[in-house]
């Protein structure tokens, strides 16, 4: 490669910038520094000499264009010496383009107050759109449930299989382990007081009333809620939802309602399974660690644990299911036309539905306790 350099000399009272070799984006910065350090204020004529220049790229031409413009506006005569056709052409091209191009507007920096305001407003809009979704769900589409011929049995059955039957294993395993852990921790405490048999009371009530519904809801939110969001979100991106609408297949009827109904039907069953498995976990620990036989455990269980705890736990199922399914689907419908928003909305869907489930559980707790149940 030619040796590239810049000579600055005075000839006949004119400042001459003589470039050698190449002037490209790779060596532009150093030249720019050199040129910036020149004091042009005493000059009247500047000659930019490209006679020895081999190659000029478009970035460098922009630099030359800007330099020329600046010098001209300072009232300095500029002359470009060049015989190389290619270089002249690119200078000409850049000059023409720059004259018609407009500056890209940079968005102004925003203060913290403005950001906060916008954030609040966005959240408010989000809340409104969720309300609109719920409104549409109830007002417009409940009619499909009312008239029997509109119920999509096939879709509901499919969803029951997808989001619940296939979740039996993981719900059972998680619940068994939770039962085991809770029993093991309490056994340690109970042994100190010799109150071994009370493991049954403790475990029975906490599992049936609170733990099983919550554990099941959390597993289902993570497993099926997120799947709803991802599926509907992807369908939105691939325009499948639009295609459904133009064919007159209401997505609410085909996708939304069946999912909600399926989950509401199966959630109590899953909680029931979770109850069984958690209690089995407790029995195992009671047997091994505390020396309580299975018969004794079950006798005590039917004696001290009232059936209402079981029914309260089961009754929470449909409510939790409704929250998980609607939030999952709503988030899916909120997906924009880019893949990143699938990830964003899936995360949101899981976090929000677990949060909603816990709030709902707290409301249940307070209401039922105040009612004396």
């Amino acid at each position, binding site marked *: 490669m030619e040796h590239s350099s810049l000579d600055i000399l005075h000839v006949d009272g004119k400042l001459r910038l003589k470039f050698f070799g190449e002037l490209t984006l790779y060596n532009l910065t150093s030249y720019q520094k050199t040129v910036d350090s020149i004091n042009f204020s005493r000059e009247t004529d500047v000659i930019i000499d490209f006679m020895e220049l081999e190659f000029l790229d478009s970035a460098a031409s922009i630099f030359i264009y800007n330099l020329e413009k600046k010098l001209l506006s300072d009232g300095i005569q500029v002359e470009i010496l060049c015989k190389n056709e290619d270089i002249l052409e690119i200078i000409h091209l850049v000059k023409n383009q720059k004259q018609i191009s407009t500056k890209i507007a940079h968005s102004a920096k925003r203060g913290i107050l403005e950001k906060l305001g916008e954030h609040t407003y966005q959240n408010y809009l989000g809340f409104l759109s969720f309300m609109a979704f719920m409104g549409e769900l109830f007002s417009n589409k409940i009619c499909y449930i009312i008239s029997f011929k509109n119920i999509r049995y096939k879709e509901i059955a499919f969803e029951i299989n997808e989001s619940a039957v296939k979740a039996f294993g993981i719900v059972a395993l998680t619940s068994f382990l939770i039962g085991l852990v809770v029993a093991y921790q309490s056994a340690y405490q109970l042994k100190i007081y010799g109150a071994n048999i009370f493991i049954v009371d403790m475990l029975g009530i906490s599992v049936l009333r609170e733990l099983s519904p919550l554990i099941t809801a959390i597993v289902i939110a993570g497993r099926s809620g997120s799947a709803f969001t991802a599926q509907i979100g992807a369908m939105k991106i*691939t*325009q*499948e939802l*639009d*295609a459904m*609408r*133009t*064919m*007159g*297949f209401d997505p609410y009827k085909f996708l939304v309602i069946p999912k909600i109904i399926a989950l509401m039907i199966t959630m109590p069953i899953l909680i029931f399974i979770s109850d069984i498995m958690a209690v089995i976990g407790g029995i195992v620990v009671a047997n091994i660690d505390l020396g309580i036989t299975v018969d004794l455990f079950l006798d005590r269980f039917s004696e001290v644990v009232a059936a209402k705890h079981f029914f309260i736990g089961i009754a929470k199922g449909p409510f939790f299911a409704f929250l998980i399914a609607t939030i999952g689907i709503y988030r899916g419908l909120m997906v924009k036309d880019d893949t990143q928003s699938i990830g964003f909305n899936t995360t949101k869907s899981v976090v929000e539905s677990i949060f909603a489930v816990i709030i709902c559980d707290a409301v249940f707790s307070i209401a039922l306790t105040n009612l004396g149940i």
Partner: protein
Amino acid sequence: MKNIIEVRDVKTIFDERIVHNGLNLTVKEGEIYGLLGPSGCGKTTLLREMVMLQKINSGSIKVLDYELNHIKNEEAQQLRQKWGVLFQSGALFSSLKLKENIALPLVEYTNLSKAMINEIVEYKISIVGLKSEDANLYPSQISGGMKKKAALARSLAMDPKLLFLDEPTSGLDPISAREFDALILKLRDILGLTIVMVSHDLQSIYDTLDSVAIIDNKKIVYEGSLGNIKSVKNEFIQTFFGKYNE
């Protein structure tokens, strides 16, 4: 001839950006009608408004004598069975096989027997030039051109009177694109369809279209036949059609 679609003074605004401002056009029965214009001028948006996927800010759109602004739910449902829509990317249902995709409207809207639906699906598959062994594939297993054909077969399943196509030949190789053009002409002739399509494919435009509407600067700058389009003083028309010799 009857007017199939009437668009009157339509205005569309996204956030603060005006996309259409006072747009008018008329599609007549039996026509192949093209929507043309530079990228981003709002062709897809207009198409989406015609098929009720998007609301207009003001003005009116009339499709097959239904006024879309005041359409009732049941009427909208009837209307949707009278048209077919081919999306730019096909939008086949990815969880269904091709034959199930095509059969879906038939299964949902008619009480035809399984055997009859199968017959119809076979016919639609052959009419768009797919092979019958393709019918058992999923959308992810076929090429782009085949997807377009399958999506066309699906939009034709209910024998619609009106067909909307968004860039049907874009992304196809030239041979498939010409086949697609021939197919569309053939369908218009045998089924008596009215077709509204967005296209950038000059060859396809000259081969298939009866009338065009050029959208530029938020309005229709030309509506009519292709014959004397080159005389129109408009930058887009001059650059787009200028060099083409029939």
